[in-house]
């Protein structure tokens, strides 16, 4: 099985990689680049723990081969923090106690970050749609919805959290 040359931009940094044909974006991020915030749950696109933002859209990184996304931009949970400051969305997750065991959190954050990038003032229903592919087995959904709503309000009013 031959290797494939791929250029990826992850969290604003460019990487030139030689990847295996069957290497999933999830594998590249976790094993090769050590972005271990990306979690592997079900491996078949049902749990959303591996969600990353690929060219501005939330995707399951377990359902994408790295060779398919040559030249693309990826944002993982590690890329949310800027200059030592957490993203307002991360702050809101903390404030609303939207994190219990934490396994689903990176995926939840990336799904809802993608939503807010596209729609800064979502309704509660729109937030639910954005995370319908993310399972939280601690069942902290209400707190997660509250966190996203409050982060949307904060960014709308331009306040710093």
């Amino acid at each position, binding site marked *: *099985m*031959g290797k*494939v040359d791929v250029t990826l931009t992850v969290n604003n940094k460019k990487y030139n990689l030689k990847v295996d*044909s*069957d290497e*999933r974006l999830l594998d590249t991020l976790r094993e090769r680049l050590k972005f271990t915030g990306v979690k592997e749950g079900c*491996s*078949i*696109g*049902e749990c*959303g723990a591996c*969600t990353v933002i690929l060219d501005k*859209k*939330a*995707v*399951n990184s*377990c*359902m*994408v*081969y790295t*060779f*398919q996304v*040559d030249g693309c931009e990826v944002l993982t949970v590690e890329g949310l923090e800027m200059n030592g400051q957490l993203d307002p969305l991360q702050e809101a997750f903390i404030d609303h106690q939207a994190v219990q065991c934490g396994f689903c959190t990176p995926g939840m954050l990336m*799904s809802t970050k*993608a*939503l807010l990038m596209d729609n800064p003032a979502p309704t509660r229903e729109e937030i639910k*749609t*954005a*995370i*319908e*592919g*993310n399972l939280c087995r601690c069942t902290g959904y209400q707190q997660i919805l509250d966190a996203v709503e409050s982060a949307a309000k904060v960014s709308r009013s331009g306040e710093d959290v």
Partner: protein
Amino acid sequence: MLEFQALKADNLDQALDILDEKKKQVKMIAGGTDMLVGIHNESDDLKGIDYLLDISSINGLELIEDKKEYMKLGALCTHNEIINSDLVNERFPLLKKAAGVIGSTQIRNRGTVGGNINNASPAADLVTALIALDAKVVLKSKDQKRELPLSQYITGPYRTDLKANEIMTEVKVPYIQGEYYENYQKVKRRQAVAIARINLAVITKVEEDKLKDIKIAFGSATPTAIRFRKIEKYLEGKDIAELNLEEIADKTGQEMVDITGTRWSTPYKKPVVGNLLKRALQDIVKEVQ
């Protein structure tokens, strides 16, 4: 473990050349939302593949275009692109509804109409709607181009008429003249990320309170999604104020059993197909009034 060599085509000609040369050893991948599950599960259909050809970055195949007589859905347009298309919204809200119940946001961002059709699951949500809409598919090979009705293209569960040297480039959805009503129903185990137990698409005109040109397609009820022609014929011309819903439900269940025979799922599916059509017709009647 399935072992394969990755290949990537930047344009259609290049992809067709690769298929022409390597023929049967190649499988195509676009959004990958079914393919990666198949590979993960080492599906029998994928045993013996040597190459996986990525066609997801072929330019132009993702477009949704108005072609006067029909709407062209590029094979690579994603479910979310269908949902967000003004043209789809205006002309075929049914397709927006069908695309909207597929998987999750993440899956709708990657999965394509071509993939939904070519995976040929009997439960595919878009396929049922496209069958009701009399869609056609366009298939290209290096030297040829052919077009056939979607209902003929899907030949069985997970089987299509795609030849080893062909790529599906587009789906043609013919415009319907005049005002019409449409309804989409899906029965599933939960609200999201759920495969349809049964889905239903209904399209009909209503003239002087009478059903006209009614089209009814069920998915997951028969080996492939198909139009239920007997119940269509029975309903044609019926006054919407005088629909005998119980009789319609019975006849619909019977039509399914006539096709499938009695299977383990029949005690569940027979009443459900009938009730779904009942629900769809009730919705349409309400809309008319």
